[in-house]
């Protein structure tokens, strides 16, 4: 995963509340068992003139020339709610988005962002609205800076909004770390836990994936 330290880019406002992952990428656009090939499906229900079609709807923000190359998305409350599908984050990433700024995030979506090098930046609704207003004047020149290390969003001469990410998430983004590699450094702790826990809760540990009783005994 590539590190994300500071990002200065065009920001596109999509200030609806409760934008769900079905909207970010409809299930019908998840066509293969893959983390890639998803960018065309991004916001497919809103971005094209017809469902299943590929003719851009000029009214949709990401289709407007002024927002070409946007790498930051400004969103509403509870961004990324609904399905856990990581395809929503993969599609955003493939489109070029590296930060989403919103008043709140659905928890699975926010975790998926961190694992894929996208910063989920939580700012007040007022701050997000102020950033959107700032950008709207001339999106290509009115860039927004997301400073992960400094914990601040900046725009123009005056807009300065501090934000917090937990240290773990911040370091993951800054260093582009692989969480599995990090965790496997604690393999000794994991093994010790499993030895203890097998004694404390033997019923958790199943052998060879076979049921302990006959299938015909199962009841609903």
């Amino acid at each position, binding site marked *: 995963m590539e590190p994300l330290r500071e990002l200065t880019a065009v920001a596109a406002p999509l200030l609806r*509340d409760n934008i769900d992952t079905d909207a970010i990428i409809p299930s019908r656009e998840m066509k293969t*068992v893959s983390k890639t090939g998803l960018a065309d499906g991004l916001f497919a229900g809103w971005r094209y003139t017809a469902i299943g079609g590929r003719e851009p709807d000029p009214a949709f923000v990401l289709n407007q020339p002024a927002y070409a190359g946007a790498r930051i998305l400004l969103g509403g409350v509870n961004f990324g709610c609904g399905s*856990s599908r990581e395809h929503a984050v993969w599609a955003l990433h493939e489109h070029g988005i590296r930060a989403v700024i919103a008043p709140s995030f659905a928890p699975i979506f926010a975790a*998926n962002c961190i694992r894929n090098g996208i910063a989920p930046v939580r700012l007040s609704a007022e701050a997000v609205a102020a950033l959107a207003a700032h950008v709207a004047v001339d999106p290509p020149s009115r860039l927004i800076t997301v400073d992960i290390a400094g914990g601040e969003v900046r725009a123009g001469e005056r807009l300065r909004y501090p934000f917090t990410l937990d240290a773990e998430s911040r370091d993951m983004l800054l260093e582009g770390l692989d969480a599995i590699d990090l965790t*496997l450094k604690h393999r000794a702790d994991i093994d010790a836990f*499993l030895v203890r826990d097998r004694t404390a809760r*033997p019923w958790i540990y199943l052998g060879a994936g076979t049921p302990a009783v006959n299938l015909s005994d199962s*009841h609903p």
Partner: protein
Amino acid sequence: MAPRTLFDKIWGQHTVRDLADGVALLAIDRVFLHERTGSVALKGLADAGRTVLDPARVFCTMDHIVDTFPGRGDATRMPGGEAFILETRAAARAAGIRVFDVRDPQQGIVHVISPELGLALPGATIVCPDSHTCTQGALGALAWGIGSTEAEHALATGCLRVRRPRQLRITVEGRLAEGVTAKDLAIFILARHGVAGGDGCVVEYAGGAVRALDMEARMTLCNMATEFSAMTGIIAPDEVTFEYLRGRPYAPQGADWERAVVAWRDLAGDADAAFDREIRIDAAEVTPMVTWGTSPQHAVGVDAAVPVAEASGAAPEAYTRALRYMGLDAGQAIASLPITAAFIGSCTNSRLSDLRRAAAILRGRRVADGVRAICVPGSMTVKRAAEAEGLDKVFTDAGFEWRESGCSMCFFAGGESFGPRERVVSSTNRNFESRQGPETRTHIASPETVAASALAGHIADPRRIAGAPVPGGQG
């Protein structure tokens, strides 16, 4: 020791190591996968040259895009869908994971089969790349939805790096009235506190009305914790839980069972344990609920009307957009809205008790002309049990399709759908734009309300027709 909540106890028991800033390395007891998002996790793991740490505690089912028509095989109506099934099967087998495959007698929706097989247990940590994993919190497990990358992490390490969430208790006092269900309570909470109301918290459902719910109703309640934007929902295990689990295929047996129950009795939170937030609800206020818009919080009582903007709880733009999408105007009576389809199924409401309650309304009656009605049992085990009671006959005699188990038309993946602008009343959990098909208009409700509406041909209050059956009547 300071008083601890149920969550505190599970968190403490599973902490392998404290990492920085409130993040813990948490041991994961069960990982579930399905063909829609588990497939890509298994592929990612294999591509990275990693292996599954303990395949005996990982389970895979085919539920999301598997066909639900009788006589099904690997072929699905979703374009490209078969590849998901074939790739998942191959990857799961290569990893040594038990697969509840297309023709397996225990196949079903992951959050239906995990409890019914006794895989979900009190005090266990359970993850699945599926947002409705919170359903399994009903058994007193800490069960939550994750992404596919997180699933790879859990598979490879048996752990996840988790930031300790805040805790919210929702206490439901009193008793739900006759004809009011856990589904109505779940929607009521969303209508009152909004779909962002859970804000990443672990929600413990408590109070007399929750204790009075049977296990399957508790699953329905916890199922929609993700619609509340909670990390998950959880209910303290009690005698209802233990009785439900006793003798299930993967539940502990013999001496292990006795030991487990002793341990499980200690899981309930201490009396004076503190929560970060508290919500209280009077169960008597809850009535059968139906959504009118495109978010689960856009909901009112079945005997109410589509609200005006100011009373809708939605932002003005969202309100206007939702009404336009749904083809509704403020002030229209919910119970007057004509429907063309009715769906009973999904991880929210597809268990035997759900089907029994719907069947009690349908028995001896016929679905209204012009309504396509479908029932999809949540698992093959549920299906067999329902058939043993003759419920399938009740559904088919009433004019319902009776399907094989799976997620089916809870969501549209490019295959089957209800059609543009068709109005559907559905026992599912999401009424998002185009969720059940391009431009399909979904109203979510309890199975009882779906059944009553199917009979009436319009959205209907199940309490008004739950009495003596009228042969051939239209409800």
